[in-house]
Structure formats: C-alpha cells, structure tokens
C-alpha cells in the first residue's frame, strides 16, 4: 500500500546541498543601485507610477498591478529613480525587459503599509494587502498570492500544504530560512489557511533537512491558539521531484491533481514557505516584498550560503560578496541544475523568482556530451514522475506531430528534467517538450485571435442593441409617466384610444413578456458562465483573459438589453391597459 502513496518514477541525483546549507542565513550588503523589472510575476506586467528623478523610499510602490493577474512592484532601496529602461533580465534566452532603475542613497528609509492583525481583519482587507505588498509565490511559479488566497470563494479547500520538500540539488533557501524563521512560516500557514478556509495544514519536508525539521517542530509546539487549524509535519523520503506541487500532494494526501486542473479542484492549496513568511511580514509588519532569500553556491564560490538580498540587486554583486573565483567558473546556472537555465552573464537583477545561483566548475557540472539518437531504452519512462512516455513524446515533439504529442499527454509534463538526467543519449528532452508546448500554445493563440476579433465585434453589436433597447424603455417609461399624470388630473380623453385595443393585442403582449423573461434568464446564466470562466482563467493563469473579459462584457450587455426590453414591454402593457 505504501506504493499507493507515491508518485511514479523519480530520481536520486546527488544533492550537493551541504556547502550552502552549512552557513547561517546572512544579509547581503545593501546595493547602491537596483534594477526592478516590471514583470516579476506570472500575468500582466505592472505599470510604473514614478518618474525619473523622483525620490522613493524602501517599500514605496513604484509600479501598479494591471488587470486581474498582476501585482504591485516596490522600491527595494531608498533613493532616486534613475530611469525606466530596457535591461537584461533572468531568462533562458537572455531577453531584455522594461525595468525601473533606482540609485540608492544608502539610508534605507522605509515606507511601510499600515500594520494589520490578521486574526481581526476582514478577508477582503487581507487579500488587498497581499496584492499591494506584491506577494507572489516564491516556489518558482511566481503566481500572485492574492489570487490563491481568494480561491476559497470558488473552491472548497480542506487542506493547506506547505511545500518545504525542496528536492532539487544545490538549492537550500527553504531549508536555511526555516532554521531561523520557522515561526513566521507557521504563522503564515495559519494566515493562509484562515483565508482559504482550510481545515488542516500539512507541512511536507524531505528527510535530509533535520535542522529545519527541528525548528518547525519547536515552533509548532510553541505557537497556535485552540481555534487554529491543526498542523501536521510530514517528513518524507528524499526523492526528486517530491517538491513538485502535484507530486507532493500525491505523497502527502494520495490525491491526484486532475490533468489541466488545479490543486484547488481536489480541495488542496499549496504554498512555499518563503511565500508564507513574506505574506506574514506584509500583514504583521506592513512590509512589502522587497527582498528574498537566495542560495549562492557552486564549487567556484568561496563563501557559499544563503543570503537575504534586496530584489533588483545585480547577480554579479551578490556573487562577488560570496567570493566568486571568476576564472574557474564554467557554467552559471540560475535555479537548480535540473530545472534551471544557464546564464551568459551576471549583469542581471535578482527577481522574485530567483531562488538559486550556481557557479559551477567544469569538474562539478561538466558540459553535456553531444546528443545521440534515442535508442528507446525506456530509462526516461522509469524516471518520469508524471507517468508519461518521454521517448514517445520526444519522437512526436521532434516531428512536430502535435496531436500525437497531446495524445501522449504532453501537457501533463511538469518539465522536471528527470528524463534528461537519466537519458543515456543525453537528449535534452524537457527542452524539446517545453518548445513543443510553446508551439502548440502559440498556434492556439493564433486561432483564438480570430475568435477574439469576432468576440469584440459581438460586444459592439450587443452594446448598440442595449442602447436601442434602453432608449425604447425610456420612451415607454416617459409615455407611461405622461399617461399617469393625465390620469391623475382626471383627463379621460387620452385614455379613450386604449379602450379600443382588443384582447388579442393584449395576449400578444403577454406572450412577448414571457419570451423576454425566458431570454432574461438565459442571459443571466450566460453572465454567470462567463464570470466563472474568467475566474478560472485568472486562478490558473492560463487562457486568454482579455478575450474572456470581452465575452463577459458581451454577456452583461445582453443581460441589460433583455432587462430593458422586458421593462419596456411591461410599460407598454401598462400603457395599453
């Protein structure tokens, strides 16, 4: 039965966590300049609300969230806005993006949000706070936290899972942070459970982090009130990728997140410990997200360890502080060695998603040998935690046979890289899969574009119809008002013609009203459906949110049209009788 509580596959790569986990959490020196990308989260980039030359304080909002899936950006040091410019950002293909650059004044003057007590605040207020504090998931997905916090509105959540598994080699941010800040994490878990209505909290952690486990146990003993959700600490055997959201849920609860679904669909919400700590700080101390813990490691740094660094600090400065031996570096890796990517230079800022920076020597992580043909040995299948057949996916991804790739569940691939790790032919499988997914998404997007144009046209039509219907309703209302006034004055001549209307016309009106009432109910249902689709899309971050918004607006216009028509018909009936 133990097998049941498990995900298939998985690998045991060398952990190499020792070096960075031994050092205590340090604070990185205050940077003299920060570069803050406008998009450090999944969703729409924020809009800058400062101008060059303006003085900002640490924690002051410098860019405002746009749309539903977005979040604010804050100054991470105090000083003067230097420019808003395009700057290289952490990205596999070395892309540039628009960033706000701030020159520091070394004073670190803070501007905090008002302090809140989460046990006494309204949900709406707390959720607003998460948005205004720029809290995003620090586990890698950088999904805005307020959306996850509000997920209880649409889903019944029974369990909150704290994902402290941290299974990828080299990375020790959660481990080291938990040793010193377990209390904050536990309180953050309680806060989030309170918001989503979870009945219990499960902390999943791998058994190679004894110190973090001790710290958590201690803070669990020390804290909590009687009406808080019960917290259970679950220590699991180390295996990559236990820290995958779906894999951890499977291991802790033996539930499977449905394909293309969310953990919320099976009553679970997953949070990374770093996110929880940031959320608690935002509420309790009014501290927006201006820093994060990052692991600096690899054989080419003399002082490996974890530092709490301001967002926007340049990677080169962080590495210099960790005493990088530049000559020995053969690969610079952002993220872990399995899911991360190589950087070509380090003039890029630390962002909310950056959890680890590895400066590896040639001996440590040798360059991959050349790719060889797939011999269909099946090693990748044995390693795949999603129960896929990577060898088949590879075949179809390479030949751009997208239908077949989807038939073999391409979109259930979590891009964990376990298959690459074991492949004897050194095929970068996960990279092929990511590319195939992008290609499919792009095609769908193209197909949707045409659809989107049609939806916009429909919205315009609906608006015009609504305006006409409203005009008609106003006319009928005016008429009714005049009639009523004249009736009040006892003038009976005006009512003369109404007596000539026969019963047949009346019956027709009754029928009209009935049809309109049905149309109104249908329009109301359509609005509900559109609202749901939009809510879903903003929870998953997938789907064309713009398009869904247009569709919702159309449905609303239609509803108003039917409502106006109905009231017009009613007035007309009144007038006629």
């Amino acid at each position, binding site marked *: 039965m133990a097998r049941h509580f498990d995900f298939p596959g998985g690998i045991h790569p*060398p952990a190499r966590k020792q070096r960075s986990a031994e050092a205590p959490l340090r604070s990185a020196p205050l940077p003299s300049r920060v570069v803050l990308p406008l998009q450090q989260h999944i969703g729409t980039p924020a809009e800058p609300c400062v101008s060059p030359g303006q003085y900002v304080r640490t924690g002051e909002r410098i860019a405002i969230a746009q749309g539903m899936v977005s979040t604010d950006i804050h100054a991470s040091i105090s000083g003067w806005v230097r420019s808003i410019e395009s700057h290289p950002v952490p990205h596999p293909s070395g892309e540039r993006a628009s960033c706000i650059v701030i020159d520091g004044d070394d004073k670190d003057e803070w501007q905090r949000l008002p302090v809140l007590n989460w046990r006494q605040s309204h949900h709406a207020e707390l959720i607003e706070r998460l948005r205004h504090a720029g809290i995003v998931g620090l586990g890698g997905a950088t999904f805005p936290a307020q959306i996850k916090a509000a997920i209880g509105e649409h889903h019944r959540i029974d369990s909150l899972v704290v994902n402290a598994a941290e299974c990828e080699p080299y990375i020790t941010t959660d481990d080291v942070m938990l040793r010193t800040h377990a209390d904050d994490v536990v309180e953050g878990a309680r806060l989030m459970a309170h918001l989503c209505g979870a009945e219990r909290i499960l902390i999943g952690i791998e058994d190679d982090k004894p110190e973090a486990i001790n710290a958590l146990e201690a803070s669990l003993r020390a804290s909590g009130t009687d009406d808080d959700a019960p917290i259970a600490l679950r220590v699991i055997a180390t295996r990559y990728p236990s820290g995958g959201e779906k894999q951890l849920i499977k291991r802790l609860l033996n539930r499977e997140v449905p394909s293309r679904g969310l953990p919320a669909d099976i009553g679970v919400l997953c949070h990374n410990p770093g996110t929880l700590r940031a959320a608690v700080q935002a509420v309790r101390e009014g501290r927006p997200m201006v820093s994060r813990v990052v692991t600096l490691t690899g054989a080419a740094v003399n002082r490996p360890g974890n530092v709490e660094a301001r967002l926007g600090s340049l990677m080169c400065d962080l590495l210099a502080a960790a005493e990088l031996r530049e000559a020995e570096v053969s690969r610079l890796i952002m993220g872990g060695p399995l899911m991360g990517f*190589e950087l070509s230079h380090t003039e890029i800022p630390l962002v909310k998603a950056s959890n680890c920076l590895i400066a590896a020597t040639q001996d440590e992580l040798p360059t991959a040998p050349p790719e060889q043909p797939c*011999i*269909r040995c099946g090693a990748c299948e044995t390693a795949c935690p999603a129960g896929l057949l990577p*060898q*088949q996916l590879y075949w179809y991804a390479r030949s751009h046979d997208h239908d077949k790739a989807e038939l073999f569940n391409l979109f259930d691939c979590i891009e964990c890289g376990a298959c*690459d790790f074991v492949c004897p032919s050194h095929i970068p499988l*996960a990279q092929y899969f990511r590319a195939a997914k992008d290609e499919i998404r792009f095609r769908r997007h193209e197909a949707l574009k045409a659809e989107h144009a049609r939806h916009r046209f429909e919205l315009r039509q609906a608006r015009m119809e609504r305006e006409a219907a409203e005009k008609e309703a106003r006319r009928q209302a005016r008429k009714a008002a005049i009639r009523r006034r004249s009736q009040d004055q006892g003038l009976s001549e005006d009512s003369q013609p109404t007596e000539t209307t026969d019963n047949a016309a009346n019956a027709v009106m009754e029928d009209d009203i009935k049809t309109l009432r049905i149309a109104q109910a249908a329009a109301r249902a359509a609005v509900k459906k559109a609202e749901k689709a939009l809510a879903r899309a903003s929870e998953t971050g997938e789907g064309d949110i713009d398009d869904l918004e247009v569709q919702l607006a159309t449905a609303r216009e239609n509803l108003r049209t039917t409502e106006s028509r109905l009231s017009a018909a009613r007035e007309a009936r009144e007038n006629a009788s």
Partner: protein
Amino acid sequence: MSLMHAEQTAIRHPGDSGRLMAWVAIATLPGIITLTWHFGWGVITNILLAILMGWSLEATVMRLRRRPIVATLRDNSALVTAILLGASLPPASPWWLLLVGMIAAIIVAKHLFGGLGHNPFNPAMVGYALLLISFPVPMTQWTAPLGLLSSQAPSLSDIVFHITGLSGTTLPDTWTGATALDAFKNKPETVMASEFWATSPLPEGARTAWYSVSLAWLAGGMLLLYQRIIGWQIPAAMLGSVLLAATVLYAVDPSHHGSPLFHLLGGATLFGAFFIATDPVSAATSRRGKLFYGAGIGLLIMLIRTSGGYPDAVAFAVLLMNFTVPFIDYYTQPRAQGHSRPNHGIKPPPSSNEDRR
C-alpha cells in the same frame, strides 16, 4: 532541461548509449565461448568477419551521409548487430553469406530507415531471415558439436579454406549435423517422441551442447539484467509464454511435442529472449507494452515451431512482433498522473479539442 547528467555523477547508472551497447557485447561472451567450445573456431571466424563487415559498412554509409564516422561507430550498435548475426549463423559460414546478411542488417534494415533509433525491425534478425529464406541449405547445416580440441574437429586452416567459399556451399559431411530442433521437427509423424530420442538422431553430445550454450546465454542475460541494461519485462514475458505454451502442448500430447525444457533450452529461445527481443529500438517502448511484446514473441515462436515450416522461429517471431509495435505502443500507454484512465488508440485526446473551442 537538466544540466546534470546521471552518468557524470556518482550514482549507479549504465552510462551512455555507447556503453550500454558495449555491455550487451560483453554479455554475449559466455555464449560465444560456449558455442566455440562445442562447435569450434567457426564461431569466432563468423563473428570476427561480421564485425569487420559491420564496421566497414557503417563507416561507408556514414561517409555517404556525411556524418562523423568515429562518433557513430562509438555507439557500438553495428558491433552488437554483427556479433548477434555472427553468433546466429552456422559456424564457419562462407564470407559471402555473412556479407549478404550484414548488408541486409546494416544498410537495409538500419540506414535505409534513417539510422540508429529509427529502424522498426531488428537489424540482425532482418539479415538472418533474409539469409534463411534465400539460402536455406547453408543456413540449416550446423556443424556437429565436435568440440574445439578434439582430433576430429576441423582445424583452423580447414575453416579458413571453407569460409573463402572455395569448398562449395556445403560442408564436408563429417562436420555437419542438424540442430536438435531441426531434427525433432523432421521426425516422422508416426514416430513417438520417446522412440525418436531412443534412435539417437543427433550426433553425440549435441543435446548437451545445445543446452549448455543456452545456459551460457542465460548467464549473459543475467549480467544485462543486473547491470540494468535491459528490463525484466521482455525476457520474462517471452520465456513465460514459451513455457506456458510448451507445457500445455506437452500435457495434451507428450508423444508429438517437445518437453518444455526442450523448447526452453533446445534452440535459440534464451538467446532470443535476452539478446534479440530486448533490442530497445525495435521493441515496444512502454513497460506494459514490453510485456505484450515479449509474450507475443513467445507465442509466435511456439506457433511456428509446432506448425510452421521452420525449425527455429526466433527471427520470424521477433520480426512479426516488430510489425505490431506501433499498435502496441498506442494501446499500452501508461495512465498519466491526473488522468483517471490511460489514453488508448490513436484518436486525439478530447481535452485538446475542448481547449481549442
């Protein structure tokens, strides 16, 4: 994309594709040594010639395709194909027989289909089947198990003379004998199995020789399993279905069917189970698919042995099952996480249509 690779770390792992194939080559050694011990130097000449031809053919094709030659030879796939074909042919086969077989294996079966990884059929078995159909006489004349060192055994110079093809297509009578399966196959209908064996139809020691060779292949197979070069699925399913079918037939009619042990050890069953059917490129790919694939080979072997026209059937059974691989692959997809059922068949998933809407 993983920037870390298993073989570059300290964990236990078979290594890269080339090393994987090298292990297969190493695992054939017990079988080759035992074969040589019983059947003489002809086994070695077969294999060496085949290897030379395999390398030259591969190099030629790589030249024509303008691909790196050395890097391709290092994947060791031509080496393994050559060893397997050389070991399957009657010892001291003439050079032209080997050459035709190797051309069919390397050029036709492998490179015309796009090279390693793209070949739907097992190259060595394509070569073998082609030879068996085209040259049935030299293909069914096995040397008698005279032993490597006995005085009757042909000397190395005899063999060299023979493989040059100068001595004609047939072997000198004193050398030849039929394989056990072959002899049993040709047993007259009226003769009971027990009577047949009582007439000692085979040269002396032939059965022991065949059995010990089979056990040597088994030993090599165990090495492959231990080194995780092959999975247990195909050999287990194939041997299981051979045993099952043989037991049923033997139980129903012991006088006209070989015993299960005879079917297991008397022919190329074990060689096929560990070295031929497990060729990953042409086999079914999922773990579940491999079970069906192996079981299918086992059943076909028994079907051809009992009712077909050829005494041993590993090559045909494997090739026939190679045909079914795409079909097996479609129908044996494992259940992916988050799905209630595995996807079957070749229709596109309904979910993708939904998404497009």
